[in-house]
């Protein structure tokens, strides 16, 4: 909950329509969602159900066709592109399925990227980067390039990059989708620890029921609507 008692994330009557030529695709059809601060929510559903679209709308990467999205009291569906960029930099940490690290930068430089948008000094940035890498257990790999890391390690760097600014919300799009089981479990352990020990609010899109079981709540999306409420841990 936010300071005034409202949910951290409030989604009301959210619609997203894509047009492909004359074809109209209603990806999201009136989604309502409340997420409290400190929750770890899994979004499950078949391919094309609108999971990633919902995640993109919650992260301000896309704008809704209709409805409202409020995160931490900010109506992000009303923000201009420039303000939305600045809002993302302050409030959102993204974790991608394919890690999306910049191959020409070392692990620490990748993690430092979001901090370049802050007024922090170089030494302060270094300190934050070291802390984030330590949290994901990669202090010894800071000078390595992505090509020198395993998939699991790359994803850890991706998570370190997502948390280095201490964002309000962590959005993870299939974070274990490209990993083997062992590495996937380690990533899930890490996300779980970030939620349980550091109070991070996390929304994770996943196909994997085992991954979803690690979250505190699971929602199922089907054909653009929230179908069922899953378990509450």
């Amino acid at each position: 909950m936010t300071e005034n008692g409202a949910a951290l994330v409030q989604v009301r009557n959210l619609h997203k329509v894509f047009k492909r030529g004359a074809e109209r695709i209603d990806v999201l059809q009136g989604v309502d969602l409340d997420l409290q601060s400190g929750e770890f929510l899994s979004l499950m559903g078949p391919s094309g159900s609108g999971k990633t679209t919902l995640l993109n709308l919650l992260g301000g990467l896309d704008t809704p066709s209709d409805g409202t999205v409020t995160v931490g009291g900010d109506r992000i569906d009303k923000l201009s592109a420039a303000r939305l960029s600045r809002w993302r930099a302050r409030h959102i940490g993204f974790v991608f399925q394919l890690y999306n690290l910049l191959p020409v930068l070392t692990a620490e430089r990748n993690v430092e990227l979001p901090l370049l948008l802050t007024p922090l000094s170089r030494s302060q940035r270094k300190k934050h980067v070291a802390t984030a890498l330590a949290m994901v257990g990669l202090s010894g790999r800071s000078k390595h390039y992505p090509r020198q890391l395993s998939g699991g390690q790359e994803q850890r760097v991706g998570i370190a990059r997502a948390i280095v600014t201490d964002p309000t919300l962590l959005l993870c799009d299939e974070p274990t989708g490209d990993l083997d089981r062992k590495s996937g479990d380690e990533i899930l352990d890490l996300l779980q620890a970030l939620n349980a020990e550091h109070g991070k609010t996390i929304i994770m899109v996943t196909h994997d029921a085992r991954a979803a079981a690690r979250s505190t709540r699971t929602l199922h999306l089907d054909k653009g609507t929230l179908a069922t409420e899953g378990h509450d841990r």
Partner: protein
Amino acid sequence: MKFFPLIWTSLFRRKVRTLFTILSIVVAFVLFNYLSAVRVAFSMGVDVAGSDRLTLIHKVSFIQLLPASYKERILAVEGVDAVTHATWFGGVYQDPRNFFPQFAVDPEGYLDLYPEFLLSSEAKDRWLGNRTGAVVGRSLADRFGWEVGDRIPLQGTIWRTRSGDTWEFTIDGIYEGAEQGTDTTQFLFHNAYLDEANALGRGMVGWYLIRVSHPDQAVAISTAIDERFANSPFETKTSTEQAFVQAFASQIGDIGAMMTAILTAVLFTILLVSANTMGQSVRERTSELAVLKTLGFTNPRVLSLVLVESLLVAVVGGGIGLGLSWLLISQGDPTGGLLPAFFVPPRDLVIAVGLIFFLGIASGILPGIQAVRLQIVDALRRS
């Protein structure tokens, strides 16, 4: 500054491609400066020619001689301040390839009309007192390693002595140029020596050099002088020194226009090469740019990252190019005397720097706009 490592590493993600692009820009700007120097050299000092000086030649041709007696008659024209003359000697020093201009002049009058030829008073006194003496420009002296006191034999190709075709001179002084474009390749000697010793006859000179009191009356004075000699056996054609030099240079074509055409083609090609490199670089980084935008990089910031990157390529390439060309041009006239004023004027250097920045911005602007228009969701979906 904190974004510099990001820009620098992006620049060298494809090292070979970036290096070749930089190399092409280096070549373009070496060419730019070098051809600028050639253009200046072919204009033969038009920019530095005196605006208060007129050149009087035979109306038929530059190579026709004029009577030495014209001097007093020219001086009598209203508005004429001083008159001197010069005659082309055209001798050979050791080898016909060792070309340099040699003029038989009236020493005092010539030095008076060309104050940009800086000669010490000792050297001037020595020269005035030595009928077979000569003064040479600094570039010419350096070219052949001549020093004051050296005896210089020249084989006459036009003028012969009564005893043969070898003329002996003693170097009495070496003059410096007051300006960068001053011609310091000349070999000047007494017209009196030529007049007395040549086997062809006396009392003739090549052309006259006239200083006028008021440059704005140059045209009227030129007309008055030419009218004075009209219908004589030696009719004259008088023009300002700048017009004369310009006309002389244009005999071998409009070098300036040719150089401009070549440079425009070269720079336009480089612009395409550079823009293509930046375009490819941005296209290859679609997903990375989308990630940067996801992290909160605004569109103006993404645009500036791309522009700074392309500017960096242009500045590095252009900077190296200008540096290299400076090294080449500072070696002096590559023809060994045919292009005495071989340098890049400051105006062309300023243009070169402007072109570097234009190239950087122009080659980065379209890829930058492409990056700005990138839709995060679409780009991430494609990655």
